[in-house]
């Protein structure tokens, strides 16, 4: 790990038009301080890859409301009316991806796979424009890897070398996304000495984490 950053300093690393993987599910487990700093910085044209766009005032929803997002790759935007409104108004483009396919595409990006073969989406709109491969007589969609310039991760505990652990359903997409950002920035609820997170409780090894946000004030 390279070091701990103030949220403003972390946000300054992120340029106009960057692509971001953002952890969380309906904002549960999302890195809220990091997102607040991005909203304060105000760089736009972002591509956001996330399970959903939460709701106005929460998680990814704050970036949507602030008009900083140009493109969304997500499985669900139905609980954020602003995302839908901006999509209809042409301010945001949106690629909708089945949730299981989304997580496998992000994992493939982080794990060096050229893609995965899945039956999900066959004979639906999701099939459109995709390569199809037949294995043992069954047809599958080729789903391609997703990576991003940054992964913004929400964790429960971090230790001084960047090892991360998560709590219950706040885990969700975070560990997978930590594999797939070219720069990985993690925000943890507490930062604890090395050894407090035992090896078997580490869900994201610190070697994947480039920066931790400093502790909350």
């Amino acid at each position, binding site marked *: 790990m390279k070091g701990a950053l103030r949220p403003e300093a972390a946000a300054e690393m992120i340029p106009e038009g960057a692509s971001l993987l953002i952890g969380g*599910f*309906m*904002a*549960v*487990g999302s890195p809220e301080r990091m997102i607040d700093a991005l909203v304060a910085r105000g760089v736009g044209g972002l591509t956001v890859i996330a*399970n*959903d766009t939460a*709701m106005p005032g929460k998680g990814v929803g704050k970036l949507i409301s602030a008009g900083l997002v140009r493109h969304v790759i*997500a*499985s*669900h*935007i*139905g*609980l954020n009316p602003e995302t*839908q409104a901006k*999509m209809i108004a042409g301010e945001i483009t949106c690629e*909708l991806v*089945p*949730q*299981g*396919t989304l*997580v*496998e595409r992000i*994992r493939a990006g982080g794990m060096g796979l050229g893609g995965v073969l*899945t*039956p*999900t*989406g*066959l*004979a*639906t*709109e*999701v099939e459109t424009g995709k390569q199809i491969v037949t294995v043992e007589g069954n047809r599958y969609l080729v789903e391609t890897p997703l990576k991003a310039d940054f992964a913004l991760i929400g964790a*429960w505990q971090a230790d001084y070398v960047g090892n991360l652990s*998560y*709590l*219950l*359903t*706040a*885990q*969700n*997409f*975070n*560990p*997978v996304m930590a594999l797939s950002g070219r720069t990985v920035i993690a925000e943890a609820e507490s930062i604890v000495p090395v050894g407090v997170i035992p090896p078997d409780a580490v*869900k994201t090894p610190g070697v994947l984490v480039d920066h931790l946000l400093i502790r909350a004030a």
Partner: protein
Amino acid sequence: MDAKEFIARRVAREIRPGSLVNLGIGLPSMVANFVPADLGVFFQAENGVIGLGARPPEGMEDRHLTDAGGGFVTAVPGAASIDSAMSFGLIRGGHLDMTVLGGLQVDEAGHLANWKVPGKMVPGMGGAMDLVTGAARVIVAMQHSAKGQSKIVPRCTLPLTAQRRVDLVVTDLAVIEPTAAGLVLRERAPGVTVDDIRAATEAALVIPDDVPEVILA
């Protein structure tokens, strides 16, 4: 008893001891209320827990433990936290014994449409395509009609959720089993005749000699 409770109680009878079950948001989630605690059933919330429980006692809600709709939940003894990759691995790998989902349309081929009304409602498919493709058993729980229109149709006019034939449809009027030979009427709601159901159904139905009344859990 209102129509939703009727549907939920009928679906609850389909749930086998010791199985792993995913309930969609809304009506399907009501099914859990009618499953005996001693049945050894584990409910999955696809955002990250096996062993989903009821709402927590007031004041004990924790933001790290929610269901896929973002609502506070509990976890039962023996629960396991899962990340999104494991969660959808369970769904897509056939480990999920049953999913119960809402529907917009089911057709004579047993195809389900439940994620999009073009031009009107584009929330995204969330986990629905994975659930219908991967779950061992797919049950659709929905009202028989909406705004006077049958939701059981010759051929879905809305975008399909998957190419897989669903296993059972439970409505306020009837229990219908999609088969290779078409939609077989298995049960009727109390006080509802076969002719009532036929009149309320746009799709062709296969009517066995004996169509018993629904028995509830």
